[in-house]
């Protein structure tokens, strides 16, 4: 009985962790490439969930929403980079950070105007609403397994893109030395544009996937932004593997404290972060102190 409960809670933690991983990956590639800490990341996540609500109401098809939302919000991200963030390059990292912070305010208010200030329900898609028996260990919601699977596929695709393609090579080179890259005749501005769009698309996907598991409301992005930061600090900025492992770790820690010490569940991830900061200020997989 106790073992079953722990197993189910562990899986819940991994599903929660999957959302954290998608979020912090988006945050991390934007920072790694552009040197921009995207304080609107939580707002893009929230916008993704609401875009999902909109598409579901329009078409009634979850799968269509799953395909359309990351593209739509990714396109929004392209616009934001082109119009608002690009003028700030070369002014130091604080200004893009401050700008995206203001942008977060604006996005939240726009969603409040369009959808109201109260939360909205988000049904689990019918095909995934059942549960799956985990070899006698327990009965586990199919949707959470689906979230874990989607995250794994996305991470694999992202890794293939970065490690095995010409585009990935350009992105990695750009993170090292953008100046040399532009001397070599590559349009670095376009690479940055696309990376920002990719990051915001990932945030929107995370928001849509989380929508049936956590409540959808205009403020949902704030808590999640902090959670993504905690994951990034624990994992070490700029490390895909670090982000993935830290995301899972945080998800599992939060779920297990919810089981054993419910009153500590909101606090446990910060305790973990404090511990990591004391022992390894650069994060578990970070390379030296980031500037």
């Amino acid at each position: 009985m106790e073992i079953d409960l722990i197993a189910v809670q562990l899986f819940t933690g991994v599903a929660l962790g999957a959302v954290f991983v998608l979020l912090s990956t988006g945050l991390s590639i934007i920072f790694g490439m552009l040197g921009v800490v995207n304080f609107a990341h939580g707002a893009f996540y929230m916008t993704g969930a609401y875009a999902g609500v909109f598409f579901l109401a329009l078409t009634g098809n979850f799968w269509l929403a799953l395909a359309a939302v990351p593209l739509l919000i990714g396109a929004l991200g392209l616009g934001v980079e082109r119009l608002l963030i690009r003028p700030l390059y070369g002014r130091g990292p604080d200004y893009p950070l401050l700008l995206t912070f203001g942008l977060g305010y604006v996005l939240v208010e726009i969603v409040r105007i369009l959808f109201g200030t109260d939360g909205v329900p988000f049904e689990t898609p019918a095909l995934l609403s059942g549960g799956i028996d985990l070899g006698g260990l327990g009965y586990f919601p199919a949707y959470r397994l689906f979230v874990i699977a989607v995250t794994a596929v996305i991470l694999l695709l992202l890794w293939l893109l970065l490690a095995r393609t010409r585009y990935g090579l350009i992105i990695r080179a750009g993170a090292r030395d953008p100046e040399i890259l532009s001397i070599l005749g590559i349009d670095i501005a376009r690479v940055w544009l696309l990376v920002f769009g990719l990051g915001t698309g990932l945030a929107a996907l995370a928001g849509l996937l989380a929508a049936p598991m956590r409540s959808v409301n205009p403020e949902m992005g704030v808590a999640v932004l902090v959670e993504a930061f905690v994951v990034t600090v624990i994992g070490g900025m700029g490390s895909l593997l670090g982000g993935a492992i830290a995301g899972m770790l945080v998800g599992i820690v939060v779920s297990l404290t919810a089981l054993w010490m419910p009153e500590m569940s909101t606090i446990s991830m910060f305790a973990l972060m404090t511990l990591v900061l004391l022992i390894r200020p650069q994060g578990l997989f970070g390379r030296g102190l980031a500037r």
Partner: protein
Amino acid sequence: MTSARSEAHEPTRAQRWRVPLVAAVLAVLPWIAPSQALAVNILIYGLYATGFNLLFGYMGLLSFGHAAFLGAGAYGAGIALARFGVGWFGAIAIGVAASGLLAVLIGALSIRSRGIYFSMVTLALAQLVYYVAFQAESWTGGENGLRGLTVSSLRIGPLSLNFLDPTIKYYVIFGFVTAALWAISRLLNSPFGATIEAIRENEGRAQACGYDVRRMKLMAFTLSGLVCGLAGALDALHLSIVPIDTLYYQTSGLAVMMALLGGAGTFLGPFVGAAIFLLIEDSFSLWTSHWQLFVGAIFILAVLFLPRGAWGTLVAWRADRRA
């Protein structure tokens, strides 16, 4: 962003007159501001933004967790008043001490990380404080906020002031704010002020010159926390309640917005920024509940086109004309 200073020990004319100037403006503020409530808020949030700016503008550390110090001051003073029946002055002292202590703790942890990390770590630790206050309902009142700390009269020696009178309340808070500003101004003109600005400009070189950079950072962080704690304690006395939102992420963001709108790295900028922000909020919230949309948009425009802030641009323009 910087105002060049040749001699740390000899304040310029502008530096000598900045506190009397702001005190004079604040002294007549209740008659200029659209409402008395707005005037008090400008005092309190101006001080809050000034405390934040000690760290951001002068030391170059962008904290996204200063709500923790405003909140610690407010809850510290509030709990002392409501739960222990401490007198008003003692309550303020306890609030300031509580936030100073918290600043030492959060500061010691967060200055281990640099640059961008620093912003994320301060934000995360401040959220931790928020969740702790949220859970500790028997102390803080949890979600409903801390209530029952009405101070109706202030006893100063043989004197007894009616704190329910808005004008008296304003000038009592004005007294504290002006004293704090004077202390901050003195401090920034001291070698300490010159040192933290040197660290902002070039941390490696300051270290090479023999300054203990870490200790300086922790000192600046703690001072900044103390100032914000005083603002929080005054806010608790002013409102008679401490809402849980005092500790929330948005309150941390408030300090950032105010400092930047007015001009980070200038002495009076944060005060000007607080006034601008609160005026926008006050006038837009009259005709729309979505005033945050306008505040956010104006902030974005300020980052893009007026990065020195309103006051900072003015100061730079005057300096250019003289040169």
